[in-house]
């Protein structure tokens, strides 16, 4: 089946949903179900839209995008299902967002990518507008627009040098035409910054705090889970198959390292649960991009998967918790899990996985990251990762202990059975994958090869 359906169906349904508001939510669910079904049935290959072969827009389905699509669509679906109440007003926007997300993962064209970036961006602005913090959303909009503007500028510069927008053709063309690295520095830097804004890299991420600080379960999971994963995967593909970092690799590495450090340190200094989680999310995305920038695709994908699952659990539960207790100060949330043990269990498993303790998936990921880094002899970077993850562990443990053990009166909150089930299944998944990872690692094995093949064969033309 043609992967374009993944984009087309949600878009079509979005139009339909405008016509009849009543059916908006069912349409969204149907679209999601269809997408999930499609994701598990489409076959790999390169699909050109409109038959223009390399001159037109191409969609690429390889192992990489397939994994991304599966993860993102499933989590998107579950997010919508577990937050039915909040979704109502946003159904159309979510449909558009779904199209954008799938497009980002599938597209093989730089400009098309920009378009999807804007689609995702605009839907993100709209989703966050539900937080009743218009100023924060406005900030997000301004920064997002500047970011994508810079990305556009970069890609035009690149186009003027290479004459193509096909992602698979750019690297070969650069090699063919022997374009000097110094010329490439500016366009790639611009694109890096552009995507960096969306990927929450430090100094371009001042929007994150305002947006996520006040987000509910739906918004935060979508922004920090689904969108962040999509952007990270897109970023990853660009970094591994398109970008020639060359002379800017130092700046990039510094930016990423600082992002990681700043995120964790800021989380350490935070006293509100959502703030802690959002800063931690920033640090994680810094780490993910850092891995991509070092060419470590497999660990990066593993981290992305671990990240989206644990972020789903953490943000969903936090969202429900904040809804129920009307506070997100950790001090006043003390002991909440003593009344909600199952939810607490899922939360604990997710955070232990994020910290990277054994028996949980995060541990396997961490081990993989470090093994790969050390096989590149990246001594400094791995030391930094360890230091950072020590800080991370510290505040997560602090948080967990506070949430389990009360000092004074304990606040309560209600969680639907569905949320409980989903978070528990995810938590169990983290444990299962933490003990038995073989299927996952096997399916990841071929990713880098396939990515490189696409370039080597010049997109099969």
């Amino acid at each position, binding site marked *: 089946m043609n992967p374009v359906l993944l984009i087309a169906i949600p878009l079509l349904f979005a139009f339909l949903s405008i016509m009849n508001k009543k059916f908006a939510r069912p349409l969204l669910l149907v679209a999601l179900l269809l997408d999930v079904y499609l994701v598990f049935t489409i076959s790999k290959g390169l699909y050109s839209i409109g038959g223009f072969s390399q001159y037109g827009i191409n969609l690429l389905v390889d192992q990489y995008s397939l994994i991304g699509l599966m993860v993102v669509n499933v989590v998107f679906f579950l997010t919508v299902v577990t937050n039915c109440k909040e979704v109502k007003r946003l159904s159309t926007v979510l449909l558009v967002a779904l199209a954008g997300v799938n497009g980002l993962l599938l597209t093989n064209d730089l*400009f098309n990518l*920009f*378009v999807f970036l*804007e689609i995702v961006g*605009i839907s993100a*602005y*709209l989703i966050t*507008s539900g937080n009743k*913090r*218009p*100023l*924060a*959303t*406005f900030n997000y*909009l*301004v920064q997002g*627009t*500047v970011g994508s*503007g810079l990305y*556009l*500028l970069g890609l*035009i*510069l690149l*186009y*003027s040098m290479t004459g193509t*927008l096909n992602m698979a053709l750019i690297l070969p063309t650069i090699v063919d035409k022997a374009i000097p690295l110094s010329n490439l520095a500016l366009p790639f830097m611009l694109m890096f910054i552009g995507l960096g804004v969306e990927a929450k890299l430090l100094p371009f991420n001042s929007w994150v705090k*305002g947006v996520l600080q006040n987000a509910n379960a739906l918004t935060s999971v979508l922004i920090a889970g689904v969108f962040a994963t999509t952007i990270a995967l897109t970023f990853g593909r660009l970094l591994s198959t398109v970008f020639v970092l060359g002379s800017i690799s130092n700046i990039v590495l510094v930016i990423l390292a600082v992002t990681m450090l700043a995120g964790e340190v800021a989380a350490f200094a935070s006293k509100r649960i959502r703030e802690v989680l959002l800063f931690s999310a920033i640090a994680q995305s810094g780490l993910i991009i850092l891995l991509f920038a070092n060419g470590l695709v497999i660990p990066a994908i593993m981290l992305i998967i671990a990240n989206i699952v644990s972020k789903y659990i953490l943000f969903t539960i936090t969202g429900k918790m904040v809804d129920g207790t009307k506070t997100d100060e950790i001090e006043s949330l003390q002991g909440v899990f003593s009344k909600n043990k199952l939810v607490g269990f899922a939360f604990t498993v997710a955070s232990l996985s994020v910290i990277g303790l054994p028996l949980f998936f995060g541990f396997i990921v961490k081990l993989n990251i470090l093994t790969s880094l050390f096989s590149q002899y990246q001594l400094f970077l791995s030391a930094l990762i360890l230091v950072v993850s020590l800080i991370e562990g510290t505040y997560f443990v602090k948080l967990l202990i506070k949430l389990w053990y009360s000092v004074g009166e304990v606040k309560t909150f209600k969680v639907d059975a569905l949320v409980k089930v989903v978070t528990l299944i995810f938590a169990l998944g983290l444990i299962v994958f933490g003990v038995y990872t073989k299927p996952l690692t096997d399916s990841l094995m071929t990713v880098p090869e396939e990515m490189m093949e696409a370039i080597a064969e010049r997109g099969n033309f």
Partner: protein
Amino acid sequence: MIQYASIILIMLGLYGLLTNRNVIKIIISLNVFEIGLNLFIISVGYVDGGLAPILTGNSTSVLSFVDPLPHALVLTSIVIGVGTTALGLAFAKKIYAKYGTYEIDEMGVE
């Protein structure tokens, strides 16, 4: 020449974003930035003395055409820009409804 002009526009837009603390002015700066960008995109496709890229019966070389792709791109880009601006204005209205002012400094700390 037009490239320099567009770069100056981009710079102006960024400068506006840096210095303005008024929601509407920020949106305008954003627009200036985008216009600069769009001009730049068109300028990339420009070929001195080139023809419009329309296949006629005459046997003109393909190389003498201006590049049509940037024109296509810029259309999309303009559309997106308009969309963003509209959204920005909508948010501006919401902000005004909430705080009663467009000056960010007067809104107090959020």
